[in-house]
């Protein structure tokens, strides 16, 4: 049997294992090296875990038995320290030497650190893995400043408020989730989270973190000199692909480990998937493209390789503390803007030449798939335009009914 080594045991890696063992159950003897001492868990569920909505056992998707059932050797708690490409071997911190015929890098990403003075102070944390969650859950009631109004920052802030902390979120832009939402939706999200107790400081740059005499963080200084008292600071300012091993091994690395459309690195024996890769100048942070990469990569590893990973812009679906939102496409670009605002729900469609090019749904997202299909199929929406924002049921009814001639008797 050939040997397959997978570095990383995150969501991309686990999906890859599922696929390979399904497609070619007898082709490889598989070893997985995970840095964290856990079996496979759903990182997406860390926020609910932090918010108290679930527990660790419930978010474990792949217990040790799962690996055993498939004859997969899982090494945890002992990170890979080197890849010896000429020997086709990887070495772990504990001294394991693992030969491979094929190697997959699924090393993921690390939380970006604030590029300011004071990030090393005690009480400055990230929100990335189960360790971080455990730490955050252990805090006694305190003043917490979350830096970053992206998905993770908002989830952390909301969860921490639920834990009873006094939470202030600092965001550098005018509205929250500025990658996924337009201004209206961003403001709605802010208002909804404010209702739950999160305080916000918007359009604020974090200048530095100040500490006390014990070396613990005591406040966050903003660009305008304002001081936000803080017993803890959570950094949520994005992620950085983890490329150290690939770098050391002499693979081509830019922002991430560079791969082709088959997820192969410059070394034909080595593949890379997930948040650590750079594909066609793009890096990744959401789960949907990771799964697609895992599936394509697995098909090649299974020697059924005919699929290519071609990034397809897909809809971003998020649930921020129970609030649904979906967006896709160029929703703030050129063209015509259609908006619908209801209490608790908002829709924006961007239209160019009678075709949907972008969308933001906030609150009620039941029609997201319908709009996504109109977008993908480049459907001409001229005849649906009056009821387009009302969603699928109304569009279907209108299509069935047609535009009745209006009569004076109406």
């Amino acid at each position, binding site marked *: 049997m050939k040997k397959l080594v997978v570095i990383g045991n995150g969501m991309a890696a686990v999906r890859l294992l599922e696929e390979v063992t399904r497609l070619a159950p007898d082709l490889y003897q598989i070893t997985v090296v995970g840095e964290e001492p856990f079996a496979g868990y759903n990182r997406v569920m860390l926020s609910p875990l932090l918010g108290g909505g679930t527990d660790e056992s419930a978010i474990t998707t792949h217990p040790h038995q799962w690996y055993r059932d498939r004859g997969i050797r899982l090494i945890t708690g002992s990170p890979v320290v080197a890849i010896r490409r000429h020997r086709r071997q990887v070495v772990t911190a504990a001294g394991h030497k693992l030969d491979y015929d094929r190697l997959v890098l699924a090393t993921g990403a690390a939380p970006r650190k604030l590029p300011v003075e004071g990030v090393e102070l005690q009480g400055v944390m990230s929100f990335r893995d189960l360790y971080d969650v455990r730490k955050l859950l252990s805090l006694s009631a305190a003043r917490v400043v979350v830096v970053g109004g992206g998905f993770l920052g908002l989830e952390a802030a909301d969860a921490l408020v639920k834990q009873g902390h006094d939470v202030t979120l600092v965001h550098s832009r005018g509205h929250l989730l500025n990658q996924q939402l337009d201004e209206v939706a961003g403001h709605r999200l802010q208002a909804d989270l404010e209702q739950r107790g999160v305080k916000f400081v918007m359009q604020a740059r974090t200048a530095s973190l100040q500490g006390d005499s014990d070396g613990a963080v005591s406040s966050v200084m903003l660009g305008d000199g304002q001081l936000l008292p803080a017993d803890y600071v959570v950094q949520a300012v994005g992620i950085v692909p983890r490329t150290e091993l690939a770098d050391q091994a002499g693979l081509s690395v830019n922002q991430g480990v560079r791969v082709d459309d088959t997820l192969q690195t410059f070394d034909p024996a080595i593949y890379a998937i997930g948040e650590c890769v750079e594909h066609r100048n793009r890096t990744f942070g959401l789960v949907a493209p990771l799964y697609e990469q895992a599936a394509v990569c697995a098909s090649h590893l299974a020697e059924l390789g005919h699929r290519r990973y071609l990034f397809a812009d897909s809809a971003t679906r998020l649930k921020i503390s129970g609030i649904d939102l979906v967006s896709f496409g160029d929703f703030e670009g050129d063209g015509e803007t259609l908006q619908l605002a209801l209490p608790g729900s908002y829709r924006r469609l961007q239209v160019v030449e009678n075709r949907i090019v972008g969308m933001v749904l906030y609150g009620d997202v039941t029609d997201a798939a319908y709009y996504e299909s109109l977008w993908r199929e480049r459907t001409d929406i001229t005849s649906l*335009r*009056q009821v387009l*924002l*009302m969603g699928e049921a109304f569009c279907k*009814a209108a299509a069935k009914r047609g535009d009745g001639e209006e*009569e004076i*008797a109406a």
Partner: protein
Amino acid sequence: MSSICTTCPYCGVGCGIRTDGNTLQGDEIHPANGGRLCVKGSSVLETLGDQDRLLYPEIEGLRASWNHALDEVANRFRRIVDEHGPDAVAFYVSGQLLTEDYYVANKLMKGYIGSANIDTNSRLCMSSAVVAHKRAFGEDVVPGCYEDLEIADLVILTGSNTAWAHPIVYQRIAAAKQARPEMKVVVIDPRRTATCDLADLHIAVRPGQDVPLFNGLLTWLDDHNALDGEYIAAHTNGFDAALSTAREQGNDWDALASQLGVSKVDLTTFYHWFATCDKTVTVFSQGVNQARNGSDQGNAIINAHLATGRVGKPGASPFSITGQPNAMGGREVGGLANQLAVHLDIDNQEHHAAVADFWQTENLARENGLTAVDLFNAVESGQVKAVWIMATNPVDSLPEADRVRHALMACDTVVVSDCVASGDTLACADIRLPALGWGEKSGMVTNSERCVSRQRPFVPAPGEAKADWWIITEVARRMGYADAFGYQHEHEIFAEYSALTALAGRFGKRLDLTAAAEMSADQYESWEPQQWPLQADPRCFGDGQFATPDGRARFVACKNPVVHKMGDAYPVILNSGRIRDQWHTMTRTGRAGRLFAHLSEPFTALHPKDIERYRLTDGGFVRLTSKVGDALVRVKSDAGQRPGTAFMPMHWTDQFSRRARVDALVPARLDPHSGQPAFKHTPVNVSDWQPRWHGWLFTAATPPAVEYWARVPVDAFLQAGQVQRYRLAGDADLTEQQLHEWMPEAAQWLALNDPSTGHFRRAALDADGKLIAWLAIGESLPLCDVEWLASCFADEQDVQPLSILAGQPADAGPDLGPVICSCHQVRQKTIEAAVEEGADTVEAIGQCCKAGTNCGSCIPELKGLLATSAV
């Protein structure tokens, strides 16, 4: 509550109604309708209620006590009479008034103030028939009765869309024709109206050609030895002059047919039928009266009946049919400026002396007063300085209506008594007096066949509203005439009036109510419908004896009208009239949303060729201009219109649409004998108007100032009042700010913006999520189900916000088309489905889906659908 019998507040048919206040039905024993009711009558309970009622007296917009308001009216009238003479004041009253109200108004103005400046809105509809009757018979008497329509062999309906304007009379004719299919019906009307559905022959005569048509008939009868020479010799005068005038147009039937714009076959068929049917009734109405020669048109018709001896005989009579519930009562008591009282004349010394003696007054007016149009001209010129308008809306109903408005705005004192709080005339009033409305007031009315019936109250007066007779009496007392106006109850007034009719008898008139003069209050309360002359034959003049000094009827030589060449500037002849489910200026029917289901917006109907010719769009908008005014309404294609003519309903006021008052277009050209305006013949120009945006607005607030709006009441109420549905259209760019201003304050909003297509929607909700206003604007009319939306205002049910904004439920059923049957709310597609399933008669449709089974006024449309489906 036990049920009471009363009469319908609408047209001159005067149907009996039985109601307990919650439900209502036709009164089976009332001679006018025998239990039938039309859609308007059936829905009259829906028009009750305190909303938009005038509840308290107001002086210059401020609430006043009755005492103060009555003093103010009396003092102002007193002062003006003392300073400028009695002719400086005037009353303008209405066929909505009860006989008792009418009587005291007439008695006060003519008998005590001493001016005959009291005229009535009956001037606008019936005064030419009054002249025709008086000239021919010596008295304003309708000789026949409704039963004649059922026993006639030939019924001619001329200038009357009976099916829509007098539905129960139409149904009686229809039922008779069904029972006796050999009975013939001829409709004479430039329009092919719903009434033509019943017709064996439709004479689509050119507008204004009734005199040549009936002069031709007289000649034809002479040529064909169809005259009743004995009758003419024994009972009439003036026949030779009338015939020779008629003969001036010759007897070339080809030429006459061509002049009238009809086929010779149709023309001679009509003449032949008239010649050969002894039992002929000719019904004539506003299409005859509302013309510059309306009196002559009436007499030309009567001439043909006199020449054949067909007056006041069973199944044989000319039959003028009135428009208002008590136009006839008003004519009896003297509500017109050129009548004294009880069919007597002001300028007749003997009549004058007799009435002055009866009333014990020295002030009795000696000269005819100002008739409606002249009266408001006198207001304009300042000759009349105070006018009291009761229960009518001259700012909408008089010709050159914009001028009337300006005249009233400039007038020293305008008093308006009305039952509604807002109206175009009320807006001009200095003093407003709250009057009782139907269901609250008590008194007598006389219908088109001289049948006197009670209107009885069954709901309490709203606010401080009072009976019109009480208001007038109180003012009379305060002006110093307490002795003559000591009435405590309407019964006393009716008794006095009945006694006064003895004078009519003394001077050879037929009007006779003397049998009621001594009746008790109890007898008055239990009065059952009776025709006058009381205790006599239901028909008049059947014995050939007329109310002229010599007892003979008079032929009137009717000259053909001068034909005016159509100018290029105003190439279309505009006709006006009623539609099926509305009445007058909608002060009552406009309160029932159901009555807008048939026709919800003001419109102008034109022949398809004219729509093409003037580059209009069916369903689009048309701007009409005449010499005196303009209007902006929807366009309705109607192949039943004569090319070159247009029709526009008379009902819409500034309360219901931005600019749809047809009478603003009508020049004040009058019949020289009757003073009745020529509403049926207005030269206009028509031009296309294409709005840049269309919209719907539901709100309890006033409409926005946009180029076009038309209102329909929604049967739902908010704290702010009744919800109204507005259809909007406009030219000017809209800003989001404007849209915001059109909507009320709200706790929650639903909003849709598609600025590139100009499509905007707004729904305003209160804190509980209840819908309080709704707006949609678009380059084309925004899609929505207006009736479903209306139900969202009424119901407490939870509705999805998306559905509210869409204006329709997501699972909306198929569009069933417009409501055809208003009574049962049956829509066109439901009826078409019934037809497809084999319902091939109106009765079968009724069994299938109930359409047409209540009032029957949609039966012509059902027949139309049957005919279309058969193709």
